[in-house]
């Protein structure tokens, strides 16, 4: 086995730090709540339509649902990258130790996956049946394979009479309704993982789960909007450049797109306000009560991490996009910039919690700095560096592209 001290490579110590302290939770633990947050957010967005009947979100709902499934598959991967013994990761499912916040992961994650998968199935059942019927007996290997896939996906339920479809609708509604608390729980408990660590002065607050849920929904909605815009822009481009006629003109697509985005951004703004309020409440409360740890926390928040927290997270990640979204007459370009900034802001929030929480020593008399490995030169620096984070970041899009081939979430009306 390799001999190395985990964390030694990227931790810079300053002043008085215990000898065993290093940045043990690195970039992948930033990615982990970021990914679960996106899952929860995307799902809540789709449920806004299914449960609360927000008609204006109809087109986005289906897309958000399928996208949340792709994100869901990626969500546990950062943990796998993070574990020192990833091959033993299964133990979390087999021998859960229920006083641990992480051990609930197996149960919550699986019940949530089942809910999302079932909901997708109900939404697309009619489509599966139609495809299976249409492809039956067609020549060619591709058609045969497609037929096999769709036939399997119908699970033998071929009844697409109006009554049966009506029942499907009901089931979708119930699943989406049950899914919201579970999605919030999935992410809230990610917040609990941090909030319950009493040894860490920055993490320990009962507000942590709620803050995480709010920012999760913000990031989920923002990512769905952004991806939607990118796909629509691509479609417009294709319509403009292709010779054969499409069912819509590029201008029409653009009109639908902007209209939908304008409506969705209202929800985004609402959740952003909630997230910011909670975060500021936490900050004000810490400063006001000023317990023993406040001295070192203040030196982190207003000193070492000032740029990360106040410039990158609050100004660029919250304030600027907030204004951009509120300004009248949105354009695609402005939306893209605002949404990217929102996503960046939520990422910085995760970073400031996870890395910021390890920026000071348990001695309260020393600091640690995380020098993130950019160019990997071994497995450690690959997994827990920029490269590992990029792999995790790209994966949901690749997965979505694949899933979307079978369950088209954008074309099918």
């Amino acid at each position, binding site marked *: 086995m390799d*001999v190395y*001290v985990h964390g030694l490579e990227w931790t810079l110590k300053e002043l008085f730090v*215990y000898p065993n302290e290093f940045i043990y939770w690195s970039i992948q633990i930033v990615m982990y709540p970021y990914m679960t947050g996106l899952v929860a957010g995307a799902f809540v967005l789709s449920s806004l339509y299914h449960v609360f009947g927000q008609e204006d979100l109809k087109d986005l709902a289906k897309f958000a649902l399928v996208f949340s499934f792709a994100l869901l598959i990626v969500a546990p991967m950062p943990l796998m990258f993070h574990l020192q013994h990833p091959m*033993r990761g299964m133990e979390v499912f087999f*021998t859960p130790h229920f006083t641990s916040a992480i051990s609930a992961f197996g149960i919550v994650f699986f019940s949530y996956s089942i809910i999302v998968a079932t909901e997708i199935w109900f939404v697309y059942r009619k489509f599966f049946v139609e495809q299976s019927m249409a492809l039956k007996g067609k020549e060619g290997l591709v058609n045969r394979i497609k037929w096999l896939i769709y036939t399997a996906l119908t699970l033998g339920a071929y009844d697409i009479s109006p009554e049966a479809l009506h029942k499907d609708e009901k089931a979708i509604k119930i699943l989406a309704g049950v899914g919201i608390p579970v999605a919030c729980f999935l992410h809230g408990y990610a917040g609990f993982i941090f909030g319950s660590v*009493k040894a860490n002065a920055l993490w320990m607050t009962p507000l942590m789960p709620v803050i995480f849920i709010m920012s999760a929904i913000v990031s989920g909605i923002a990512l769905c909007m952004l991806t939607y815009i990118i796909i629509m822009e691509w479609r417009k481009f294709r319509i403009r450049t292709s010779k054969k006629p499409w069912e819509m003109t590029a201008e029409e697509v653009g009109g639908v797109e902007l209209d939908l985005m304008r409506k969705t951004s209202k929800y985004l703004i609402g959740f952003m306000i909630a997230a910011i309020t909670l975060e500021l409440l936490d900050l004000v409360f810490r400063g006001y009560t000023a317990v023993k740890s406040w001295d070192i926390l203040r030196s982190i928040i207003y000193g070492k991490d000032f740029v990360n927290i106040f410039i990158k997270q609050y100004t660029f990640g919250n304030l600027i996009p907030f204004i951009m979204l509120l300004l009248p007459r949105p354009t695609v370009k402005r939306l893209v910039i605002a949404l990217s900034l929102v996503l960046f802001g939520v990422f910085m929030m995760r970073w400031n919690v996870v890395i910021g929480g390890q920026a000071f020593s348990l001695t309260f*008399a020393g600091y640690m700095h995380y020098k993130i490995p950019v160019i990997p030169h071994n497995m450690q620096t690959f997994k827990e560096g920029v490269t590992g984070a990029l792999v995790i970041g790209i994966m949901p899009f690749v997965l979505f592209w694949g899933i979307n081939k079978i369950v088209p979430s954008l074309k099918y009306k």
Partner: protein
Amino acid sequence: MRQTRRDFLKTITRGALVTALPLGAFKFLSPREARASVESTKVRWGFLVDTFKCVGCGFCVKACKLENEVPYDTPVTRTWVERYVILKNGRMLADTPMGGRDGFTDPKVQEEEINPKDIAKGFFVPKLCNQCENPPCVQVCPVGATYQRADGVVLVDRSWCIGCGYCIMACPYGVRFFHPVYHTAEKCTFCIHRLVKGMNTACVDACPFGARKVGNLKDPNDPVTQVILNQRVAVLKPEYGTKPQVYYIGLDENVR
């Protein structure tokens, strides 16, 4: 058949008992209760550090690294010694180069040259796992790889630890780290493999000044228990509610 009120009550009580009994059999035992029912708990290991006696030689750290096979030249260590220097203006400086393994030969603290005239007080504090009575590290382990023995010692199962690092984050004393070879959570075990054979821990045996002692807190005649009962001792960071079981004589308020 007429049923009197008394019969009715009897039936109800009986019925309730019959259902309650089997349910009682399924009562979940906490790990501590389960252990108490099978193992004898006549032993509770505790530790006593006399900071007045420690001179910062680092022999304990050396002995520990060799005894417990923590690679000698890595900065991580199961036990370490801290040097504190308090200046006359109240400023506190502290360090622990290589965990104090090679003693404190450099007069510079925190890379600062210090005029001996400015020093109000200076002392050394050895640290090790507190084998907490209420260990947060055990609480947070998602797979139960970290556990507490009936005699209070907290151990890690190297064959089961997934290496998530949650326990490292949960320990307020920073005693945990990843073993450089096994890459599982690692910490001081009070040399339990020696204690069960009736020996002392490696660090206790290595200390030339008797600054470290290990003892059975359940035995009122044990010298360690005697000191803890009869003298003024303190523990580290009691505010976390972990109930640490390493007691210190002469603990200063500056100690972190």
